[in-house]
């Protein structure tokens, strides 16, 4: 029972998380921790993405062909995997942004209605 509820939550968040990751990578390549920090910064701390959610998403998006990963060195000379957007990822960012804006507007107007 507990399992199915968690599943529902992730589903709900999945689209949001993907969009945030794509957006975080818009300016250039980042490693996992960097992406997590960037999202936190972009959302003024509202979303703190745990590695347990972030990494599966990154791998999934890489498999979907939106992200491309290269191994590099971190700021403090640690081996790190850097992710960057592919062309498909940029397109995906465009469509998802559009959709999200539409949904957000719809939700806002729905909630304003009396």
């Amino acid at each position, binding site marked *: 029972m507990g399992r199915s509820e968690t599943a529902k939550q992730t589903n709900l968040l999945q689209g949001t998380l993907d969009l945030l990751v794509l957006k975080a990578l818009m300016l250039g390549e980042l490693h996992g921790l960097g992406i997590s920090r960037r999202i936190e910064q972009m959302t003024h701390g509202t979303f703190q993405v745990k590695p347990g959610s972030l990494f599966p998403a990154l791998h999934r998006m890489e498999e979907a062909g939106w992200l491309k990963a290269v191994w590099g060195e*971190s700021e403090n000379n*640690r081996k790190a995997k850097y992710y960057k957007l592919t062309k498909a990822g940029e397109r995906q960012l465009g469509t998802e942004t559009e959709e999200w804006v539409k949904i957000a507007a719809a939700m806002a107007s729905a909630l304003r209605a009396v």
Partner: protein
Amino acid sequence: MAILAQVRSLMRNLFLQQHVESALHDEVRGLVEMLTDEKVAAGVAFEQARREALMEVGGETQVKQAVRDGRAGIGLETVWQDVRYGWRMLMRSPAFTAVAVLSLGLGIGANTAIFTVAKKVLYDTLPVKEPDALRMLTWVSGHEQVVPPVWGDVGGTESGGLRSNSFSYPVLEALRKQTDAFEELIAFKDVEITATVDGVAAIEAVELVSGNAFSALGVEPQAGRVLQASDDLGSGKGPVAVISDGYWMRRFGRSHEAVGKVIALNGVPVTIVGVSARRFAGLQMGGTTQIFVPVTMQPQLVPSAQGGTTSLLGNPQSWWLGILTRMRPEVSDTRAEAELDTAMRQTAIPVLDPTKDLSGFHLKLEPGARGLDYLHGTYAEPSYVLMALAGLVLVLACVNLANLLLARAAARQREISTRFALGAGRTRILRQVLTESLLLAALGGALGLAIGYAARGVLPGLLARDENATLLQVAFDWRVMAFTGAVALGTGLLFGLAPAWQAMLSESSGTLKDGTSATGDKRRKQGVWVGKGLVIVQIALSAILLVGAGLFVQTLQNLGHAELGFRQDHLLLFRVNPPRTVQVDGQRLAMYRQLEEKLSAIPGVKSMTMTDIALIGDGNSGATFHVTGRPREKDARRIQTNGVSREFFQTMGISILRGRGFEMQDTATSPKVAVINQTLARKYFPNEDPVGKTFDTDPEDFAMPLTIIGVAADTKHADLRSETPPTFYAFYEQRSEPGRMMVALRTEQDPVTVLSAARAVVAEVDHDLPLTDVRTMQDQVKLTTTNERIFAQLTSGFGGLALVLASIGIYGIMAYTVARRTGEIGIRMALGARAGQVLGMVLREVSWMALAGVVVGVGAAVGLGRLVSSMLYGLKPSDPLTLTGIGALLIVIALLAGLGPARRAARIDPMQALRHE
């Protein structure tokens, strides 16, 4: 491309698993290290920093697992894991696996073998283009045969009228003009012709076909060309032949020199112009046509086909051609049928006997995808019964397996509970258990396919009545494979459900404790109940199969003891079949007289007779019967007739009850006489003496009335089951020119001993005279019970298998029950129960299960028996002796199977059992 990327990662995940794993490890490790570095830089001590970093990440292993679960192909990967795990579990109990795979393999193999044949009998169509657009033309009439001489089969309709697929050539020509009713009209006739290739003569199956047949059916040549319309322009204008693939291989070794070769068919030279497509063997379902010739060659190749007329092409009185039509897609069957019917009646009615009832004489369209189809009628019922029996055996094997798996699942409850406790999901466990079942099913299916393939020729061999068996060519094709695959999958799901359900019960049921506690919880008791239910089902299924076996075995025995009305021992039968070209008036009769004389003179031959048809298993020969002076019945039912030689009654051992048999005074030119059988006497002369009465019959056989000179005892006629039909015996010399005849020699010793002498005599009389269908009368009688014999053998085999499986089931469930109740039995014994009481307690449980199974099974058997009652002889499906006998047998077997576990229970040492608890 996103899809490409996904496929690439799927491949990578599956095949470069180690590389992917180590990359993931590096990545997650790198994350922890980065975090730690940051904290150390901020002044936290390393140990502390590392711990905080790990907490923040949420555990390396957990993150990695989360990534793995989201990977492409995760389903495949775990399936593969399940399969490997299942395989290990099966290999850990090889005895169980062997029993399971073997019983499944036998069940699936039996079904595969039977389906292979049934497919041919029930579902296959002719190997031609768009077979579903074909219709077979048929005519129907009342009881009275309105069409005079039919060369071909005349059968009965459901309403008691007659039906046949044979038409006259003038009717064919009239139908051909109705071109807007159909696309193509294909005429054909199967005959046997002596074919001489390079001086070697043999009788071959030949099909006369209209010139358009090959193009209309879309049958292509393998070599040379097929027949075409220009070969079929008129009598004798197309002396060409197309040979079948089989004949090409058999006689010419697939040499291309066959095309262009001249062979002789009944002595007429004919040029082979081509070889037909590989699978095409004529328009009769299951037929084995070797040579195709244009239908207009009939006057040359089969000149004396019917009585005296040479050519049937212009003869409106000869009905002999089968006609297939290819329908136009836009014309409805009803319309085409009406148009063709009108055309047939317009052409046929003026030449038919106006005294007969012609109102019911009509043309009908019947499905033609299977061409001329005798297979279905002959083998459909046995095929259904065999499929049902094989299906029951398979269900039984499934139930048995379910039971074994259930007991095993019980033994594995601790393992499964452990896996639940370690966090395995419900679906994952369910999938694991089902995977194991399907793995077993796949192994059983593979074995079954092998058994089915090895046994593919067994059933056709059993069913075959003679060497020209039409069923011998059964194809083992993809449909059979698909059938076997589907059956295996179905069985796997069927017997996999029980253990899967049982596994679900294990969840959180606390079975990590000892599994044999005296106070076993409710859920496991449910499991035992399911097991017992399955045993009852097994016993019930066994009862059905055993009752079937009992009924069919007794049917066979009853048929073996059936009163034939003549002596079947010491009789040698063979057929002489003079080539149709030997046709000079009186010449054939002279030949038969000579044969009669010389065969009787063979040492060891007491007497001999010749008959149109042999007494048992040689078919029917209908005739009209009208007693002189009585009013002519409109649409009278036909009776049976047989043309026989003088010594018939003595040779067969049939007693003459009144009057006399045929004697020396009866000759070809003396007054026409007949002997009738008892049934005919009873039916037509209930209160008077038939001897001396006269009657007339089909005018084409006898132009004048016949006088009844005697009454002979009844005999079985076409088969052992049917009531004796009213029959009259005519003296063969007094009829119009005799055709082929069956010779019967009454011998002093084993009939086979005179065979070579008989062959020599026949060769001496005419060295071109083929001698066929050689067998003893006892073999001939036996052949008519082929189906019954197969049923008796197969049902006995299936019944035996069922008994073994049910015994295993009872033993298994009782052994499990006793093991589970060891503690409880220990307490009972500690409280004073004697060993005998414990034994009785266990056996009581066995006997009520057996009794329940027997009651259900026998009840079902009585219900199902009604479906096969037409196949039984001399007993009813509810035969009380069979039913009680089988019931008693099953209960005894059940008690024997339960005895082992019961004695183990009785030997339980209370001290040990309680200490164990």
